[in-house]
């Protein structure tokens, strides 16, 4: 192992990637775009559900109820429907996600102490939004009932159980706080795997890899020289993402930075190893791109718990997720960034990450070194 030789390969690699718009775009453009998308555009925080109201009563009580819905900011009233309106058409056209139907005589019945049935029709297509909206509506109705009771002078508690919900680490339950740490794992995996795989295969295609092999460069030196620059660039990307998370989205790292760095390093080494492994299998850049995207992107999005909870998956898929490093990295990252925990809380996850990195690197080394002979 000669540091000098490794450095010369690494420097060449840096020069090349600086001149290649595609890899530059991938290393810088894709993370920026993803960050903007996840930071600003996409989230699961349901607010302003489009609500149409069919108020068949038009009493003071019914108006008060509608006002309670609108004032909650969970619902926006988008239409005031006449009796017998075509609700199907309305929901099919997606003009309203929910329709509240207040029956005729609701105010009178309430005053008379009767129970009034309120129909809430929900567009269930987007099940997540519908479930959340249903929860909001239940809470609003419960609150309205409670108010009526206290107005009636009754000392009776409507909810006989004093429910005290507490949310730790993310009190407002903002999905951005959940998505951004996961995004780091996804971006690093994608850029590290693709950039290494493509850069090695590019040399294969041009025959420069063979050129390098006839020099005294050892396989290990080659591998180190080719991966070190991308390791550096990826770490830099991590810093940039963290800075953006802090200053744009107000997500600060509450755990120790050193632990964050260590976890990221181990994860990245595994990712770069995976890139090398892909490069040892693919013969063309197009193949490397496809294979790299397949093994890095799909698992990192769908099988890592980044967006979709692993617990909700079928058993067989859950087992597969054990082989996805992003799964462990996401747990550690959320812990260190959001929960203020250190690595000592995640010995099992860290052990898996180290094991993965060693296994993948070892496999890549064996494959690349064998070809040298």
């Amino acid at each position, binding site marked *: 192992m000669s540091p000098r030789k490794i450095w010369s390969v690494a420097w060449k690699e840096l020069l090349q990637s600086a001149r290649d718009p*595609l890899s530059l*775009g991938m290393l810088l453009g894709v993370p920026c*775009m993803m960050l903007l*998308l996840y930071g600003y*555009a*996409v989230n699961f925080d*349901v*607010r*302003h*559900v*489009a609500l149409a109201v069919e108020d068949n009563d038009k009493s003071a009580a019914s108006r008060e*109820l509608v006002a309670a819905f609108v004032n909650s900011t969970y619902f926006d009233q988008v239409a005031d429907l006449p009796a017998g309106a075509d609700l199907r058409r309305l*929901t*099919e056209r*997606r003009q309203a996600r929910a329709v509240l139907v207040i029956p005729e005589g609701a105010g009178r019945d*309430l005053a008379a*102490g009767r129970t009034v049935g*309120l*129909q*809430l029709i929900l567009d*269930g297509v987007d*099940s*997540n*939004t*519908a*479930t959340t909206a*249903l*929860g909001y*509506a*239940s*809470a609003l*109705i419960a609150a309205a*009932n409670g108010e009526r*009771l206290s107005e009636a002078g*009754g000392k009776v508690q409507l*909810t*006989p*159980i004093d*429910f*005290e919900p*507490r*949310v*730790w*680490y993310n009190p407002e*339950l903002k999905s951005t*706080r959940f998505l951004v740490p996961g995004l780091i794992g996804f971006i690093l995996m994608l850029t590290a795997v693709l950039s290494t795989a493509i850069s090695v295969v590019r040399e294969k295609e041009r025959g420069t890899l063979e050129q390098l092999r006839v020099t005294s460069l050892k396989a290990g030196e080659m591998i180190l020289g080719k991966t070190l620059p991308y390791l550096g660039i990826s770490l830099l990307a991590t810093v940039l993402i963290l800075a953006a998370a802090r200053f744009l989205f107000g997500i600060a790292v509450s755990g120790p930075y050193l632990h964050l760095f260590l976890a990221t390093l181990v994860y990245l080494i595994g990712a770069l190893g995976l890139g090398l492994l892909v490069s040892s299998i693919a013969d063309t850049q*197009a193949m490397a791109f496809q294979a790299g995207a397949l093994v890095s992107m799909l698992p990192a999005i*769908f099988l890592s718990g980044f*967006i979709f*909870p692993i*617990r*909700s*998956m*079928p058993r067989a*898929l859950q087992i597969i997720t054990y082989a996805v490093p992003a799964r462990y990295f996401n*747990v550690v990252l*959320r*812990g260190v960034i959001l929960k203020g*925990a250190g690595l000592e*809380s995640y010995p099992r996850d860290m052990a898996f990450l180290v094991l993965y990195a060693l296994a993948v690197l070892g496999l890549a080394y064996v494959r690349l070194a064998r070809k040298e002979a």
Partner: protein
Amino acid sequence: MHELLAVIVKEFLQLRQDKKMIPAMIIGPLVQLLALGYAANLDVAHVPMVLVDQDRSPASRALVERFTGAGTFDLVGAEDGPDAVDPWLVEGRAQIALVIAPGYGEAVAAGRPPRVQVIADGTDANSSGLGLGYAAQILAGAGAEMAASRRVPGMALARTGRYELVPRVWYNPDLKSRWFYVPAVLAMVLMLVTMILPSMAVVREKEIGTLEQLSVTPLRSWQLILGKLTPFLVMGMLDMLLVTGLITGLFHVPLRGSLLLLAFLTFLFLLTTLGLGLLVSTLVRTQQQAMGLCIFVLMVPMIYLSGLIFPVENMPRGFQIASYAIPVRYYANVLRGIFLKGSGLDILWPEALALLGIGLTVLTLASLRFRKSLE
């Protein structure tokens, strides 16, 4: 007509010969379908729960049973005091902690409101939010039963009128998120087959020089464009049938509307994707650049900002307005409208018009650019 046919026949022969194209057309869609069908699931179930029961009375045990009996919460451990909950949540062994304070049973017996605390790990905002909602429902149910059995304060309840919420969920009564995600696969598959692949096929002719060879023949540029795109149109329509079959057969998502209408509106959507593929091919020099541009500049933003996965309604106003320019937005409406709502053209005509308009515009622009790029 004869020249056009020659191009189409050649394109099909090439597709048949290409060892990489076929897997891309079959395995790609299949993997996406399985991933979205099985993995993409926001439904909350089996939330790991740690219990702190400081009361240890029959009443507290009954409450715990209500939590564990529903299938939403799985009891994974118990601690003596609320302070011991911390590591469970930090390490992610539990997502929710149920804390029943001492004196719960006494309070229930005395008719006083007992206190129950539920602590949720907020890092997974979505499932914790839904989990808290379920917890609230369980507690409300328990409370209502208690009130009914106590009878004493029930007097007041009987005299005061109250609302009762009668929810009706249409189109997806069991609120399965799979029903929301699975039809989206069709849009993704079609983008892959009719946007990325044709753009690469055109760029390949550039790379090997046959495009120049063809441009010195009397072949008109419209014949060349139509000839190159038609096979992908056909493949796209076949993929639509295949994926629709899998969506309904494998994942049991209902197809409530007309397959014919779906085919027609898919055709309109393909005008756009084919046009975008052609447009990309005029902007790049290598197949790889074509793929990179298609995936990262077109497909990813279009998937994210169209409501295909993340609802448009949750986005900031600016992004919502921008989404009107994204053809996938209309196609997403079409898919969910036809599959789940059984909508017809009387409902979906605005989408049809938007797809037609965008499709023709993109295709025309792409064709003009392509013609220019030949010269």
